[in-house]
């Protein structure tokens, strides 16, 4: 189809002011937060309601034009990069929190709302929406549903899929369907809600969600522990869980991350430590006090060289500088930053960290690792310069070792960022041919013309 005709059709559906097509505007939607993926779309369209989304998809499906749903474009898997040209479907006009049902603790929210805004909206009612990815202040709800985002509280509170209870979805043929709803228990039919959550925009366009909210924990206790060996840190993580304590947060920083943060921030971090653990238990004040003591005991038993308890919320913020600044400081080292999210079973944490350290050494690349120790979700962060081809070759070799290592340990390529394009080459390694075929069959059933975010997650189909 001619580009001019496509633009004219889109203007008919959403109105002239909601269609962008200048070269400069198109370039502005050619990328997301993933390094190295820039592809020009043909048009950027901002629908204002579900009927318009339906009309756009119906048209695109008839003419086999690729469609890429996009929110804030902050994902780390090239999930919104318009790989094959076509329509960028900008969902940010879906910007309303439609309802807060305090009897069912459900929020009905459109996908263009920023996740932090949901939390700000429900906070006065003593509620939280737990998924809190690092991009909580920028990411749209739709993006976090499509990528099934996690965050720091994943260990105790789970991830996005645990809080999405129902969806409004537009299928590739333009059909509008509703999955799930306000029922806590619902086994009627396939669990379509879970299917679309994490589907990276390859199966349908999500327009609205019913979100489960939970009461805000009354009390917290936070602490930071320094370890001289990775084994001790890894054992401490396993032992805390074995002691039947599920901390809200249990984060780890490796030596490379500690040194980088200290170089930039000068906050007095122990640069010779092998690892730092940051922990927070939350809940009823009595239980928090009890769990705090137990955690301290486990840390001591596992040879923590130093443990500091947060005395106040301000003190906690100070202690958590190391974790908060890990990514920014690593990113400052070099122009390009790949934040990976390979995940392993908790018990394999130490082994996995060794694999990462070895890959960094073998290929002479800079990798700092931090992440969610409690759920085995690590962020090996590779800093480099995309403009240096020789270095990029080494970076990809290091990535290959890391992903293969994770899968060999019974882990997964992605804990929370999604597959998109970045981790596509390793998908068959984890899922096997048969697993990939099953996924491709689902894709072809729901999107026979392969217009929805084509080439992502399962690759060519």
């Amino acid at each position, binding site marked *: 189809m001619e580009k001019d005709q496509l633009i004219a059709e889109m203007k008919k559906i959403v109105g002239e002011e909601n269609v962008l097509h200048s070269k400069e505007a198109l*370039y502005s939607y*050619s990328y*997301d937060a993933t390094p190295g993926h820039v592809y020009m779309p043909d048009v950027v369209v901002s629908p204002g309601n579900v009927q318009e989304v339906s009309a756009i998809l119906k048209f695109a499906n008839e003419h086999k034009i690729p469609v890429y749903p996009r929110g804030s474009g902050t994902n780390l898997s090239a999930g919104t990069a318009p790989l094959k040209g076509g329509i960028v479907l900008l969902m940010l006009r879906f910007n309303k929190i439609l309802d807060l049902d305090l009897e069912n603790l459900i929020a009905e929210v459109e996908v263009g709302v920023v996740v932090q805004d949901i939390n700000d909206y429900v906070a006065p009612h003593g509620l939280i929406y737990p998924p809190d990815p690092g991009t909580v202040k920028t990411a749209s709800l739709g993006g976090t549903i499509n990528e099934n985002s996690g965050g720091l509280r994943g260990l105790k509170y789970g991830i996005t899929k645990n809080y999405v209870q129902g969806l409004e979805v537009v299928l590739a043929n333009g059909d509008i369907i509703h999955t799930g709803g306000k029922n806590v228990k619902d086994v009627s039919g396939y669990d379509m809600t879970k299917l679309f959550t994490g589907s990276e925009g390859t199966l349908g366009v999500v327009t609205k969600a019913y979100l489960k909210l939970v009461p805000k924990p009354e009390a917290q206790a936070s602490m930071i522990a320094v370890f001289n060996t990775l084994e001790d840190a890894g054992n401490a993580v396993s032992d805390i869980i074995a002691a039947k304590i599920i901390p809200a947060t249990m984060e780890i920083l490796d030596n490379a991350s500690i040194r980088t943060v200290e170089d930039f921030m000068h906050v007095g971090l122990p640069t010779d430590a092998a690892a730092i653990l940051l922990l927070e238990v939350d809940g009823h004040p009595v239980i928090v006090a009890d769990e705090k003591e137990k955690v301290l005991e486990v840390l001591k038993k596992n040879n923590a060289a130093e443990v500091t308890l947060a005395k106040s919320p301000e003190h906690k913020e100070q202690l958590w500088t190391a974790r908060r600044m890990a990514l920014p400081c690593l990113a*400052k080292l070099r122009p390009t930053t790949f934040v990976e999210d390979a995940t392993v079973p908790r018990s394999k944490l130490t082994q996995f960290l060794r694999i990462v350290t070895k890959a960094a050494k073998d290929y002479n690349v800079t990798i700092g690792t931090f992440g969610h120790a409690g759920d085995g979700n690590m962020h090996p962060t590779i800093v480099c310069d995309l403009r240096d081809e020789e270095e990029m070759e080494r970076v990809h070799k290091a990535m290959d070792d890391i992903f293969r290592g994770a899968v060999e340990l019974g882990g997964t390529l992605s804990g929370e960022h999604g597959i998109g394009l970045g981790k596509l080459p390793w998908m068959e390694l984890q899922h096997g041919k048969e697993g990939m075929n099953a996924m491709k069959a689902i894709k072809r059933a729901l999107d026979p013309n392969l217009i929805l975010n084509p080439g992502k997650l399962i690759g060519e189909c």
Partner: protein
Amino acid sequence: MANEITAEEINKHDATLLKDIDDALANCMKCGNCQAGCPIYRETRKEFSVARGKISLMQAILSGKLEITKEFDSMMAQCLTCKTCAANCPCGVKADELILRGRHATIKARGLNPIKKTVFSLLSNRPLFNTVLRMGGMFGWLTFKDIPDKNAVLSRLPMPGMDPNRATAPLAATPLRSEFPPVIKVDNPKHKVAFFTGCTINFMYTDMGKAVIDVLTENGNEVILPGAQHCCGTPVHVSGAFELANEMAKHNIEVFERFECDYIVGACGSCVEALKDYPKWLADEPDWAARAQAIADKVREISQFLVETGYKTDNLGAINKTVTMHDPCHMVRGIHVTEQPREILKSIPGINFVEMKEHDRCCGSGGSFSLAHYELSRQINDRKCENIKATNADYVCASCPSCRMHITDGIVQNKMPQVVYHPIQLLAESYKLGKQK
């Protein structure tokens, strides 16, 4: 001659145009964190409104994927220079400065846009500039209608480039610098302080300027008002017309070098930031940069000066009002002065100081941005007004005449009761009330 020059040609003609910021641009990791704070993005939610988008566009120019076009120019124009992106960037990218480089490149490639060209040629000719604004003030009553108690006016006639419903500042019948002698003497002066008035205080808000002079003399400082001082150059600099801005900087350096003074004080965050930044502006000319540094070392914002050198608090009269404060962008993220104006306000008896939500968020003025994008700057301003409303304040304080003008407009449009002052005006008023006792 073709209007548009391709990236290739630009690089051929002027290899240094954007080339030297290649590394600075590459440091942006495209995380998009700048979306969270950008006042323009919050309204438009368009990628090219935010720093990440503009940096990407500049990289596309550099790599030859895009050319410098009118559209590129208009996207680069969508920035308030509020510096929120730079202050919150995890990679420490100074996007605000890079965007100015983008504007500079546009001017190099396409020339200044005609409206700006007219305004800037007026600005560069100081005597003409002074005469025009002075005449405007003398005949102001013909063209403007006063809004009672707000120190604001509405235009009676359509004005080119201005929204007809916009409340603006009155042009003073007599500019500040014509009302006072070049030196205002006091007995046994503590310090000799040169006052950099800036244009808006000189030609419009003379009440702010008088308050500065009153407070300085009240605290035993001799005040020098160099008549030949000129616009600080900020409006020109942020448009990317660096060469012209540098000429204005040099003029001001020469003017202030002529006076022996201990300090140079300003009452506008943007002017003060410019004076402090002159060494950076003139970095390519080491001799000038050194002279600029000598000037910059003496520069203080008025509240900064008072807190640093001490001010009288034993003779203050009570102002029984609820007061809230807006932190102008160039105060909070430019020169990092936020505590001093608060300290001054809180030292005035009777004042009930209430912080507003998002007090450091841009009011939407952005100097000439509000002229070119009035509707958008109003939307941003409406959020500011909502936050002001929630404080139930009587007065809003802002250490910037542009913010004062824009917030006053918002208050008028939203039919709110507040009046906007510079913090120093309340201190001056308090001294006055103290004497009446």
